[in-house]
């Protein structure tokens, strides 16, 4: 039987982060992962992350994954892949399926970072081929380079549903609609807005009645639901689709902890069955730690910090560092974690309707109910100003923990301030040079450059564009509104790509002057 100081189950963001911290303190660490590749779900995350610099904001998930793997290998962490942990027994004995047999390992401490599994919903026809989880869609298109389908309906308006819908569009699929039984969009408004302006209709207070088809999905019927989630008669809508994608939440995969005898609780705020643990990730069994989604559903950024805290604490538990060092190091990480747990989407606000921003501005109800900000709601936000010449317009209207735009501007004309969740404001005393760094740095793709006096009778709108084929300068097409509907004719006058933009291209379109505050996307002439 092989022995380690620390055995970690799961090589995702939290497991790897814990491994790095523990190994850097001299511990002999091994990480087991059942998958062929490490990184957990990070390598399927192709969008830029939110947060601030310390949270690796504006870096794409898969790049963070590569950085973590490099850091882990430098720290001397052993990651064993295709290694399925099938049991966690008394005295921290871990049984792992490797190759054609099982192997027994023992450690003085164990850290469980197994993540989460997807929730599902039932409806007529939900077992048909073509009904898939949102995770499946992400895996197929972002890891294996294959479209999950041609025409897709997405169920679930949380961040997973919104982000995966955008990824489906990027992969070249058509998203016929985004459906949620809840009356309001659950995820970030900026994620909703970027798919709404591509023309994806939102059906809130709707759910799936049935998936159609005998051998596989050929269509879907949705219908409106009332306050008690009962179908409203006569509200049925049919779509021809070949794929139905389910993004209805995650549950912690905590079975190993239960098997080990850790005290568990059913905590809906954490997503289901979770181990009872302290702020350092210590469970009721001394020496068994947890980090990441298995201890409560959040997202990858907080999982990484939680992992670091648990890794440091495991090192202290075995005497590799003293209590003082543990507390100092954990304190820094806790501050970073607290930063992410602020704002409208903070765990404490889950399920609540926040009607006003921290600044006291009424939230866009259209954004919550239809996925885009109505024209008459736009002007009240601090990111929206008007002046002659080029200037940024930030359609960032919810308090979320994110601030890369503030650092992106070389002229410092974007201000967020000390509080990371504050809405970005424009400093009108500084002149914008139109470099576009803010547009490319915004993880929510909510920043546009406007030149309202571009030419006599015309304005120029610069927008983030992450699709192929990339339009060409001089190309003619249409300007689309925030709802994805054609509002005017448009001409592409500039296409900027740069390494610093990290695959977010900057498209500048010329539109009639009165469309400057309305045109937010571009579509080529059919």
């Amino acid at each position, binding site marked *: 039987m092989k022995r380690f100081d620390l055995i970690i189950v799961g090589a995702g963001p939290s497991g790897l982060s814990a491994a790095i911290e523990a190994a850097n303190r001299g511990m002999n660490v091994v990480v087991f992962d059942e998958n062929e590749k490490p990184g957990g779900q990070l390598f399927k995350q192709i969008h830029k992350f939110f947060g601030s610099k310390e949270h690796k904001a504006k870096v794409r998930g898969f790049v963070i994954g590569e950085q973590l793997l490099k850091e882990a290998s430098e720290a001397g962490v052993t990651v064993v892949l295709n290694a399925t942990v*099938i049991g966690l027994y008394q005295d921290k004995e871990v049984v792992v399926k490797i190759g054609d*047999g099982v192997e027994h390992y023992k450690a003085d401490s164990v850290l469980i970072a197994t993540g989460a599994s997807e929730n599902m919903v039932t*409806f007529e026809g939900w077992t048909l081929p073509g009904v898939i989880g949102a995770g499946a869609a992400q895996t197929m298109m972002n890891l294996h380079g294959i479209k999950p389908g041609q025409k897709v309906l997405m169920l679930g308006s949380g961040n997973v549903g919104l982000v995966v819908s955008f990824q489906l569009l990027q992969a070249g699929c058509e998203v016929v609609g985004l459906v949620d039984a809840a009356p309001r969009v659950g995820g970030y408004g900026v994620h909703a807005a970027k798919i709404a302006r591509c023309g994806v209709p939102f059906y809130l207070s709707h759910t799936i009645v049935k998936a159609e088809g005998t051998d596989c999905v050929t269509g879907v019927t949705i219908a409106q639901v009332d306050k008690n989630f009962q179908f409203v008669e006569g509200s049925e809508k049919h779509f021809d689709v070949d794929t139905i994608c389910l993004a209805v939440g995650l*549950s912690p995969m905590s079975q190993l902890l239960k098997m080990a005898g850790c005290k568990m609780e059913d905590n809906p705020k954490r997503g289901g069955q979770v181990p009872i643990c302290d702020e350092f990730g210590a469970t009721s069994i001394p020496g068994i730690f947890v980090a990441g989604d298995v201890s409560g559903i959040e997202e990858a950024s907080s999982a990484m910090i939680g992992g670091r805290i648990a890794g440091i604490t495991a090192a202290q538990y075995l005497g590799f560092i003293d209590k003082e060092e543990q507390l100092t190091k954990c304190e820094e990480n806790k501050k970073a974690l607290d930063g992410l747990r602020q704002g409208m989407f903070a765990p404490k606000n889950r399920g609540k309707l926040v009607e006003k921003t921290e600044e006291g501005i009424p939230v866009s109800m259209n954004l919550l109910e239809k996925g885009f900000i109505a024209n008459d709601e736009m002007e009240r936000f601090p990111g929206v100003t008007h002046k002659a010449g080029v200037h940024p317009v930030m359609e960032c209207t919810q308090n979320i923990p994110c601030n890369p735009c503030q650092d992106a501007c070389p002229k410092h004309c974007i201000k967020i301030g000390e509080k990371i969740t504050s809405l970005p404001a424009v400093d009108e005393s500084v002149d914008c040079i139109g470099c576009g760094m803010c547009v490319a740095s915004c993880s929510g793709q909510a920043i546009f450059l406007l030149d309202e006096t571009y030419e006599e009778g015309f304005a120029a709108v610069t927008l983030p564009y992450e699709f192929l084929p990339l339009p060409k300068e001089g190309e003619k097409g249409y300007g689309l509104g925030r709802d994805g509907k054609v509002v005017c004719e448009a001409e592409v006058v500039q296409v900027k790509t740069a390494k610093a933009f990290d695959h977010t291209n900057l498209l500048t379109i010329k539109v009639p002057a009165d469309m400057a505050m309305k045109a937010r996307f571009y579509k080529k002439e059919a």
Partner: protein
Amino acid sequence: MENIFDRSVDLGEFVPQPDDDMIVCRCEEVTKGQIRQAVHDGMFTITEIRRYLRTGMGLCQGQTCAKLVKRIVANELKVSMDVLEPASSRAPMRPIEMEVFARENN
């Protein structure tokens, strides 16, 4: 078992529902109606339901249906989901061939 239900509780008559033939446990092909009926037959815990119907006992070991079954049982018993103990967690946590399971490599 931490939550012992009053077995004499009257659940009323089993009333068929239009979606009773909906598959809930995909692996073992157990329907919503079967689960609801099982509760009326006296199976009040997830463990009992598993033994009675094999929900969550198939290849995937309840990865997909655990929460769905729990919701149906809780609804039928008119209790909140969190008072129902989940099923026991046992090795092997993932599908594994017996031949491999039995081969101890160290």
